[in-house]
C-alpha cells in the first residue's frame, strides 16, 4: 500500500475511533439517566394512587434533562450517519421511551405518539439524518411498557386498586391490536412482540380473578 493511501486509511480509522469514544461517553450519561428513571418508576408497584402524581413529578426533571444528552449526541454524529451509530444508544433511548410513555399512561391513561415522545426527549426534526427516534425504538419502548403494566395490574390489586387492572386490560388490548397489524421479520422486535401474549394472559387472569369475586366496580368508570 503506498504511503499516501496508508496515511489516509489510518486517519479515517483514528477519526472513527475517537468519535466512537465520544459517543460512548454521552451514551453512558444517557444510560445513567434512564436507569435512575426506571429505578424511581419501579416504586409505582408499591405507591397508592393518591401519591402517584408526586412520584411522577420526581421523575419529570430527569426526563427533561435527557434533552441535553440527545442534543450532545446529535452534535457528534456526522451528517447522514444516524444509522451507522444508532445501535450505541438504542437501549438507552428505548428505556427513555418506556419511561416517558409509562408516565403519560399513569397520568392520563393514554398513549404518547412517537412525535410526542421525540419532543419530550428534545429530538429536533432537523436532526433527521443524525439523531432521530426510529419506529423500531419507539415500538420496543412500547413493548416494555406493556411488560410493566402487566406487573402493575397484579400489584394494583394487592394495593387494593380494583379499577386499574380493568383500565390496563383495555389499554393493552388496544396496543396489541396495533402490534398485530405489523408485518414483522424474524428479528428482536418479532421475538418481543411474541412475548406480549403472555402479558395479556397475565392481565386477563387478574381481571378474571377480581370479576369473579365481584371486587371490580359494577358500573362504568
Amino acid at each position, binding site marked *: 500500500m503506498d504511503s499516501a493511501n496508508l496515511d489516509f486509511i489510518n486517519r479515517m480509522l483514528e477519526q472513527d475511533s475517537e468519535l466512537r469514544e465520544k459517543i460512548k461517553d454521552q451514551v453512558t450519561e444517557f444510560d445513567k439517566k434512564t436507569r435512575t428513571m426506571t429505578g424511581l418508576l419501579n416504586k409505582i408497584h408499591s405507591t397508592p394512587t393518591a401519591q402517584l402524581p408526586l412520584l411522577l413529578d420526581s421523575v419529570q426533571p430527569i426526563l427533561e434533562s435527557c434533552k441535553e444528552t440527545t442534543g450532545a449526541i446529535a452534535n457528534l454524529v456526522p451528517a*447522514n450517519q444516524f444509522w451507522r451509530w444508532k445501535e450505541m444508544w438504542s437501549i438507552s433511548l428505548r428505556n427513555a421511551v418506556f419511561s416517558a410513555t409509562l408516565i403519560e399512561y399513569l397520568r392520563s391513561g393514554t398513549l404518547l405518539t412517537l412525535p410526542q415522545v421525540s419532543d419530550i426527549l428534545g429530538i429536533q426534526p432537523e436532526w433527521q439524518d443524525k439523531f432521530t427516534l426510529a419506529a423500531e425504538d419507539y415500538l420496543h419502548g412500547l413493548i416494555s411498557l406493556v411488560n410493566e403494566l402487566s406487573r402493575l395490574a397484579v400489584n394494583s390489586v394487592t394495593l387494593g386498586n380494583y379499577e386499574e387492572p380493568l383500565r390496563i386490560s383495555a389499554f393493552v388490548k388496544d396496543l396489541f391490536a396495533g402490534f398485530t397489524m405489523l408485518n414483522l421479520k424474524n428479528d428482536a422486535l418479532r421475538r418481543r412482540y411474541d412475548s406480549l401474549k403472555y402479558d395479556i394472559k397475565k392481565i386477563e387472569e387478574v381481571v378474571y380473578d377480581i370479576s369473579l369475586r365481584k371486587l371490580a366496580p359494577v358500573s362504568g368508570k
Partner: protein
Amino acid sequence: MSKQTTLNTRSAIIQVFDGFRNELDDHNDRRERLIKSSRDVTNLSKKVIFLLHRIMTDDASPEDQDDHARAARAVSKSRDKLKEIQNLFAGFSHELQGERFWRYQRAVSPGLQEYIEALSFTYYLETGRLISYHEVQKTLSDAEGNNYFPLSVEDYLLGLSDLTGELMRYAISSIPRRGGRAKANEVCAFVRNCKADFESFTPYIRDLRKKQNVTSQSLEKIEDAAYAVAVRSSEYDLPPEILDDLVSRTMSSAFGGDHGGSTRRKRPREDDQEGMEYND
C-alpha cells in the same frame, strides 16, 4: 407542550400502527431488493475473478508470448465486466441516498467487497500495486464525479484483504509455467507487504482479524512453493528461464502437443543433448 393529542382510542392507535406497518414494509422491501442486487454483484464479481485466473493460466493461446501480453488481455477483458458491475451499482444507488446508505450498508456489503476483490486483482495484474481507497471510490462514481454512495473504510479493507487468497492461487498456478518461479517470488513479497500493512488496521475493524489469518495461511502456501523452487533450482546451475524450458519441453514430449507451452514433439534423447549445449 405538544399540539398533538395522545392516543386514547383503539381506532386512533390502529391508525398510527397502520403507518408503522407501511414504514416497516417499505424498509424491509427495500432491504430485500438491495440484498438481491448485492447477490448479482457478487455473482458477476466472482466471474471476473475466475476469468482472470483462466486467462493467466492459459498456455494454449499462441498470442500470449509473454506474461505481459497475457496480463494485458486479462485486464482488458476484466475491465469490460467490471464496467457491467459498476453499472449495477449505479442502478441501485438511488436507494442509498442520504442517510439511507448506512441503513442498508450491511445489505450491499458482501457484493461490494467481492467487487473490490475482483477490481483489485485486475489492478494488481495491470500495475503490480495495491489499489488505493480513492481509486476504488472513483470507480463507484458517475461521469461527473458524483459518488454512487460513500465507500466505507471497512468494506475497502475487507474487500482488499480477500485479494491475497486469489494472489496465492495465482502464484501457485503460475509456477509450472514459463517465468512462473519469478512470478511466485514477486507475489510472495507483495502478499507479505499486504499482511504487514493490514496488521495495523486489525484493531479497528472487527472482521479483519479472521481475514488476516487467512492471509497468513495464503502467504505460507506461497512461501512453501517459493522455497521448493529455490531448493530445486539450486541443484541445477542454470538460469531460471532455461529450467522452465527444460520442464515445459519434458511435459510436451511426454504428453504430446496438447499440454505445456511447446507444441513440438521431442524425444527424450534430443532434450538431453540440447540441455548439454547450454552447459558451457
